[in-house]
């Protein structure tokens, strides 16, 4: 059936099977006002997008592809310009302002 995008709850543990910047999952949930559901939805959407980028090796699949996408997504969100804002929250706020 394949691997699933990991839950942020599990990524808060220090031994979660993924290579992530320290404290990433916790900080991401905090960024969403401690709203686990909102953070998880955005996390899943971001990993889904990363799965279709060159961050994931073309020949990899299954657990390996998920691991690469999770690490790449976390590193992307840990970039200086994204560390204090979720790109999907910002996108939603911008669309709301345009309307």
């Amino acid at each position, binding site marked *: 059936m394949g691997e699933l*995008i990991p839950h942020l709850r599990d990524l808060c543990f220090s031994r979660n099977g993924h290579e992530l910047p320290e404290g990433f999952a916790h900080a991401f949930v905090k960024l969403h006002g*401690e709203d686990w559901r909102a953070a998880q939805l955005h996390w899943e959407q971001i990993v889904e997008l990363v*799965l279709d980028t060159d961050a994931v090796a073309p020949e990899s699949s299954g657990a390996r592809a998920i691991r690469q996408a999770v690490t790449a997504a976390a590193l992307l969100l840990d970039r200086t310009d994204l560390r204090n804002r979720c790109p999907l929250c910002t996108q939603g706020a911008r669309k709301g302002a345009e309307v």
Partner: protein
Amino acid sequence: MGRSNIESSFSHVSLDLPPAPPDRAFDRLRRRWRSRGQRHGLRYWLLFRGAPVFAGYGLLFVLNGLIIGWQTAYDVNIGITSPAVTALPALAWPLSIAGWLVAPGIAGAVAGYVVSSSIRSRRRRRIDNLFRENADG
């Protein structure tokens, strides 16, 4: 494993978050859908592009079978009978076009991809990896 090792392996970065809500069946289903990109190349295409196309093709055939008759639908599909002489040409024409254009085109493209992929993969393996255990699943 000592108690301190167990505690450290389950340590949170911080305990100042509220407990996470439980994962419902719908949440797992959503995660499974969003994880579909883990499949690569042909498998992804067959599951998420090809399957819907062929499901539509199958539905078209069934509709034609029910309305213009199964034998007529088959004959139209493989180009023996003209869709213009059937009971409902407006429904038979798409089936005819799908039969001689869409289905062979897609089947040919898939076969071509498989063959060319196999040809391309010849002599791509690094000799250093021969007889070495694959550590990365």
